[in-house]
């Protein structure tokens, strides 16, 4: 079964880049650009990897992250936080498998996510 990744990023260009990087790494990818939409979608699906931005419309990334950690179904889901803010990166390090500080290059995300794939 193909690995499944959810990209939650409001910037359309970054969302495309991240999605493409994950696809190239061998994931099936769904992209969501709104916090509230992500919130309800996460009740239905169990991605192997979630790439999440902290700044999101309607429901912010930190709130989503707390929900994810409270959801037993998502226990084994690997989380990549993407943020442009060094300070926030430090603060929320514990909420993620990996924290990536923007700028995030295509190849960087591709290679890192490839390592998170479950066989």
């Amino acid at each position, binding site marked *: 079964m193909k690995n499944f990744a959810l990209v939650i990023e409001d*910037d359309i*260009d*970054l969302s*495309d*880049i991240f999605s*493409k*990087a994950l696809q*190239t790494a061998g994931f099936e990818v769904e992209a969501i650009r709104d916090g509230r939409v992500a919130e309800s979608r996460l009740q239905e699906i169990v991605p192997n990897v979630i790439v999440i931005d902290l700044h999101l419309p309607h429901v912010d990334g930190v709130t989503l992250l707390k929900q994810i950690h409270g959801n037993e179904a998502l226990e084994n889901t690997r989380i990549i936080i993407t943020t*442009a*803010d*060094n*300070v926030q990166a*430090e603060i929320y390090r514990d909420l993620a498998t990996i924290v990536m500080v*923007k*700028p*995030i*290059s*295509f*190849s960087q995300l591709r290679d890192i996510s490839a390592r998170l794939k479950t066989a």
Partner: protein
Amino acid sequence: MTYLNKLIQDLIMVSSSDPDDARRRRNLNILILGLGFVLIIAITLSILAIGRSEIGGITLIIGGSLFMLIGTIVVYLINRYWSGVFSANLFLLLLIAAISFSDTPEQLSAGRSLFVFVIPIAMASLILRPGAAFFFALLASGIIAIFSLSTGKIPNSPAILGYFLVAFIAWMSSNSLEQALQDLRIINTNLDRIVAERTSALAQALTRERIEAGRNQAILNSIADGVIVFNAENAVILANPALGDLTEIPLQNLTGSTLNKFVEGEGLSLSDQRRVIGLIEHPEKTKTGIRVEWRKKFLSVGVARVQDTTTNENIGAVAVFRDVTRETELERMKENFIAIVSHELRTPLNAILGLTEMLKEGIYGALNDKQVSIAARVMVNATRLLSMVGDLLDEAQINAGKLSIKPQSLKTISLLETLHSTMDKIAADKGLFLSSELDPNMPESIKGDPHRLQQVLINLVNNSIKFTEKGGVHVHIIRAEMDRWKMEVTDTGIGIPENEVPHIFETFRQANNMAMTTRQHGGFGLGLSIVKQLVELMNGRIDVKSEIDRGSTFSIQLPLEIT
């Protein structure tokens, strides 16, 4: 006893504006009092002797004495209330008259009473002018001459000569006494004049001082900055109205207050109170002064010691408070602006980089060689732009005090590994070598903030590559001492002119003409400023040695903590 003394003083006292006249009249009064006393005793004794003695003429003695007593009282009154000269002459004439009738003409002219006349002669020089003694000597001589002639004898010339000799001696002693008194009076007058001069000079100086003090106060009052002066015991000795306005403490509450009372109250937070006290007690520890929040205002505080100009003794401190609220707000706005702008710039730059990379990687179909090279150049330039934005953000965060150091355990070798993985290509692209060396004495893992250490090292190497055209860059990590380690970055670049070395760590500055170097070497010149600030945040220090056209060595010393 004192009462008697006072009575005698009152009796003797005469009022006269001429000191010589006053002295003579006082002398006369003393003589009169003495004579009056003697006469009263004589009259008393004579009255007691009446009827018991066979001596004839006792009534004559009593009468003469009474006559003399009345005479002296009259003379006393004249002396006291009218004229000293008249009374003195009258007194002496009375005395001579009394003497002239006190014995037989024979005895007076050549016998036992001959020298009684010496008494008025000597007295004359005391109660009249000194020369008056000669007049009474002449009068006495005339009287004994008349007595001699009336008894058919020739005048007693040795006696006359004796009178004049006594007059001469009396004149001399009185004269020298008067001369001495005269000198004394001149000295006194001079003294009075000097005292008057000194007093007036002192009064003038005091007036000048008062004017000067008033002027200084006026200057102090018109200064827009708040000025407060403390003595060595930290008591407030002076404060100007501007200080009262800035701190909203009434001036009258400040004068006589103390340093502790001054900083306490609602104005300052506890930590700012401690900072202000620390600065005022040890101004030499802070070079630039401090900035505190006082009520709603931001105040900068500068403090200088007040030292005695001659002894260099510490006599207090003067503190100047300036309202920097507006500047502080502007700085905050600037910092926020930079942070927001940097943040907003990153997202599109990230997209440009990512999208170009995808093109270059052939995700959307294979590119020809020329297209790949163009995509690579877009990426290089976007990366440069991104690093400048990163520098701006770091600088803004450091300035805002938001950047913190998060030490953790890190592998020493990882510093060099990351350096090579990031910078090897950049150095190689410019045809430079990038070598590194790790001191075997360095512990395998140390405590430090890996992100910040990496940032410092990469910034320094990047800077060296920027200013090096041939040769390369060498990085050396050394254990300097037991508790210190060093990162040294040595290049073979253009070097830094000696006069520029102190400025290279300043924000927005590169050695030489900034506009030109910025264009040539890229960047805002923030790199070194950030490095220095980061190193200082990590309790380290940065030094630079440089030689024009030979290269530079940046060395960073940090405290070593082994994990």
